């Protein structure tokens, strides 16, 4: 901590020496500005879908839990992947989805926590060969078409990063109007305790002549399903 004290001393001196004339700007007028009234669910879903597609994602629609499983299985079958990775859900039961994929003859790996370093390396190695990664997002942000995903032992960050195809689903009551609302929903404690990633579309670059190309390091495709809470 010696360096910290040294730096803080330097900063205090610098702050005093360089204090600008007061007034100029009125600090701390920063109430979050919601961009749309927290309206109708349908409107939030529609806005989310539009924004997601604008950034190159694909909105598959809203489904009951059973329909969602069927749709994901059908989606996986289209590409006939060698391996699909699934992490634990937030609200949904990932087990049912894994079983359904397995029954469809698709090789599934479920990410499980481990503290053993050899086991960890083996899991990671297999993980990196998955062709589809499936995860449930904690929240979706309508104004930007963004998915907010916390990392957990059973829901690692790599799940939405390594596989070339990413499938993410989210509960309909977890779609919030904007980023500020999502951060508020998590709360500072959650965000202090976990790694979180905001995902807005497939991985992308514009580094060559500012031309947009999708799928640089992360997923090349992002398919999103919204799930109704009940099967009725």
């Amino acid at each position, binding site marked *: 901590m010696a360096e910290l004290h*040294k730096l803080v001393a330097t*900063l205090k001196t610098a702050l005093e020496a*360089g204090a600008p004339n007061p007034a100029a700007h009125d600090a701390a007028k920063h109430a979050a500005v919601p961009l749309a009234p927290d309206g109708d669910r349908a409107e939030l879903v529609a806005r989310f879908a539009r924004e997601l597609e604008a*950034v190159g994602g694909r909105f598959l629609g809203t489904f009951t839990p059973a329909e969602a499983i069927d749709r994901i299985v059908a989606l996986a079958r289209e590409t006939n992947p060698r391996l699909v990775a699934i992490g634990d859900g937030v609200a949904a039961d990932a087990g049912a989805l894994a079983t359904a994929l397995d029954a469809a003859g698709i090789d599934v790996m479920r990410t499980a926590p481990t503290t053993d370093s050899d086991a960890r390396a083996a899991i990671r190695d297999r993980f990196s060969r998955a062709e589809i990664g499936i995860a449930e997002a904690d929240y979706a942000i309508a104004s930007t078409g963004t998915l907010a995903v916390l990392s957990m032992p059973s829901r*690692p960050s790599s799940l939405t990063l390594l596989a070339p195809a990413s499938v993410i689903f989210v509960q309909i009551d977890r779609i919030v109007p904007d980023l500020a609302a999502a951060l508020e929903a998590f709360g500072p404690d959650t965000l202090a305790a976990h790694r979180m990633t905001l995902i807005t579309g497939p991985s992308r670059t514009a580094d*060559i*002549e*500012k031309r947009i190309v999708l799928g640089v390091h992360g997923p090349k495709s992002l398919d999103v399903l919204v799930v109704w809470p009940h099967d009725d």
Partner: protein
Amino acid sequence: MTTAPKPRDFFEASAAGAADHELHRKLENASARHLDHFAQVRDEFTPYEDERNTARAIKEDAIGRLDELLIELTKKLEAHGCKVFFAANAGEARDYIVKLAQTSGARRVVKGKSMTTEEIALNPALEAAGMEVVETDLGEYIVQLRHEPPSHIITPAIHLSKEDIGNLFHEKFGIPYTPEPAELTAEARIRLRESFLRADFGITGVNFAIAETGTLIVVENEGNGRMSSTLPEVFVAVMGIEKVIAKLADLPHFLEILGRTATGQKLTTYTNFIRGPRAPGELDGPREMHVVILDNGRSAMLADPVLREALMCIRCGACLNVCPVYRHIGGHAYRSPYPGPIGSIISPNLVGSAAAQLPFASTLCGACKDICPVKIDIPRILLHLRWKETSSPAPLEWPGAARRARAGARRFARMARHPRTMRILGRIAATMLKPLARDGWIRRMPPPFGNWTKIRDFPRPRPRRRRAVESQDAKG
């Protein structure tokens, strides 16, 4: 690939850029595309103007109490299991990171895009210690393959055309030549994925650090920052002291404004909230996480009431895209990881005397100030730095051409104080120059004025009567 001899100073480097018409074409293309993207999202959430005022107020508040915010941030990060190191200068930061890589037995380093690590010249130090260092941002990867520095804060390879990059990949990797961005990107993906999976040491920069929650925010589009901070066993985040903001609730303002101005996006593809090493049982995330908090001239900027404002910069690169000087000479001419208008005001403090000439390289047109998302008054700071430089006891050594130009300006100033002489000389000059004009412009002048028309045109002298009227007006 031919490499030109290294320019000795800003003057040589900028002359090279100014003469490169191909470079102008590339920069104009990229800038136009950028401004077009920006225009589409400019007023997306809230009017840009309102958002700028808010962002500026938050940043101003944070800069004004950096001391307490850094203490809070450090405590939180340490509570999450991070090791925090304060580096007073570039050397300390480099030494710490190199030693850390050595003691953790690292061999292969992957880096997310980070201008701060360019500032401290980290790569050569790691390489000298025997590490393999791979830049994984596509633009950074391209310029690393060419053994050259980035030329733009956001788009490191902005000075290269897709054909240049096609040729580079063809030469380096032996793949068939293609200028297609999608194919070139796919090739880089395969190669860099291998680097990511093999790496044992990851490094990224930091866009914002939230004191309240002890969270580092790394903003990116490709996934290079995610990979570099998730896959290797040891992860180091390098940040300047000015990156800290007070509260989580402050963050949305900056994310929305940074995406808009940097790349014309409502939000960048990946926003990583990183708080510390992995928890027991977790499959990814680093085993060990270090945060290097760098001063390196920033506290000196803080101590200067005018210059302090420059610490609010969020490195969006928008001022580069609108700057007529940057667009004319290119980023490499600045010979600093921070080129363009913002680079001209921060580089003298962050990279030192090599950049002392930069504040003079501006037309003071103010386009940078107009677009800056936190409204930094760059022209004012440029003038301040010029004043500081010219009034310093040991002013800069200027090269011959600049000295001659200054002497010429002084002679002109003396002359302009004598209206009659001025009028007579003006008449003579006008008579002599008139036959040289084509379509209202003079494209070539005889020596010693030829240097002027080498890179810019001179307007045709206007008819005498108009000049006479103007001088009457001036007399009031």
